[in-house]
């Protein structure tokens, strides 16, 4: 468990240092917009706001409501592509 966390931190560090993290974020943003995920999430947010009422809803309410749905709706193809990019990057910069 500890090893896993350390590995995550190392990978993240490497990605951040070389600016790859930002590039991957932009790629992911573009992909999620293209496939309509962003619009789906927007629509879901609006529903939650309507339910809870505009005056009372907090950001936390929205985060709790849409996080599971958002995670579930990411297309497999997008996940695959991101994973492939990260693998390629790590292979190129292996120490």
């Amino acid at each position: 468990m500890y090893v896993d966390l350390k590995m995550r931190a190392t990978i993240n560090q490497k990605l951040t240092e070389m600016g790859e993290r930002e590039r991957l974020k932009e790629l992911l943003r573009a992909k999620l917009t293209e496939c309509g995920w962003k619009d789906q999430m927007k629509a879901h947010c609006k529903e939650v706001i309507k339910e809870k009422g505009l005056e009372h809803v907090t950001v936390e309410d929205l985060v709790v409501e849409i996080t599971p749905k958002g995670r579930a709706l990411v297309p497999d193809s997008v996940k695959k592509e991101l994973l492939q990019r990260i693998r390629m990057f790590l292979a190129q910069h292996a120490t």
Partner: protein
Amino acid sequence: MSPAGCSHVNGYKVDNWKQNLRVIYQCFVWSGTAETRRRKVLQNDAGWTALAKSCICHICGAHLNRLHSCLYCVFFGCFSKKHIHDHAKNKRHNLAVDLLYGGIYCFVCQDYIYDKEMEQIAKEEQRKAWKLQAGIGEKYTTWEPTKRELELLRHNPKRRKITTNCTIGLRGLINLGNTCFMNCIVQALTHTPLLRDFFLSDRHKCEMQSNSCLVCEMSQLFQEFYSGHRSPHIPFRLLHLVWTHAKHLAGYEQQDAHEFLIAALDVLHRHCKGDTTRDDNGKKANNPNHCNCIIDQIFTGGLQSDVTCQVCTGVSTTIDPFWDISLDLPGSSTPFWPLSPGGDGSAVNGESHLSGSTTLTDCLRRFTRPEHLGSSAKIKCGGCHSYQESTKQLTMKKLPIVACFHLKRFEHSAKLRRKITTYVSFPLELDMTPFMASSKESRMNGQYQQTVDVLNNDNKYALFAVVNHQGTLESGHYTSFIRQHKDQWFKCDDAIITKATIKDVLDSEGYLLFYHKQFLEYE
């Protein structure tokens, strides 16, 4: 979540708070590129590594879990695991900033707050960091209505919601006497997304004195189509204008839909003078070859013609603009087979060769094959200064946003006039990469095996309209299939609109095929 902010920030807004806040945004939130981080914050790689390492939770070491930075001291904590909450309670530091999105959280209000001054600082730092990132320029910001626009929206409360199965934009057209050739082109044009967006956002500024501007009439037509009325529209004014401006199409006999398309695009292009972009001096671009009207932006492509001298192998290249690609069919008097080698077009476009049926990519391969011009058509070669035999090859230099393919079904040769009814199968999605001038250059440089670059989306097209002709050369009828939303197809037979399946569309004969680029990039 009041837009007026919360009173608890007042405790923070003392001394040099603005500069402190800026530093937090610069270093930890909008860090921009490695360059900006290196330049703004630290001087060496080791120190830079320390920065990346420091963006972790001080309690558990995680870098995910919605990391927040305390605004009062140097402390990072997870939001999800409540580590930053504990810190806030223990130290009574009530404000923290979300390192992912830059939002300010107030632990007393227990929500993100929006303070005008802090928002201003956040926006400025974000813009600065974005500008420094290579090759992006301005960050995209969402549209916010102006005061005037808000006023208009309040005065006009009617709203139309577009759901996946609403059919707004779909309307039949009355046949005014053999005008089905015009009707099906109108259906294709009103369903061209970029054209629709242009007209619905009122981008046409008319400079014609008379009432005979076809672009204005198109604008009216879009208003009619998107009005929500379901009764068929009677396009008599459009027909009259077309007769006025394209006299060869006047009269009540059946005309060719393809001819009408070209004539309509030509008149629209000429009448778009008021909308051409202005150059830096505010002068209008008067050059007819450099028009930037909406028609040119959407429909104009560049066709490259390479003539190679057989003796000195010198190549003479010209590039001509085009609005459509006319493709010869097997069964016509022009020879169709054999095709050039290295035909990987079909593999890329996944068309099924149903026991020898011709595909659209077959026609495109034939169109872009090198053609020997023969001894009776010698060209004067600039290289060897004499008349020599040569080969000619056409490729696409620049692809238009909307590509229209015209299958030459109507043969008007000296010997005979007939309609070629050979079935040509066409795909829903088309990759034009094999027919590009750049692909041809790679092939010539010996790179025969071109790996299909899945990440390059520039040449991918999607079918959105099909115009079909039923009957004979003497008496026939035009209908069209058009696509709404992602995969809903409708058959437009003058005033009658019916739902159609993708199979109906792909099984149809096909006369004019309209493809739209799938991915649009900014220039």
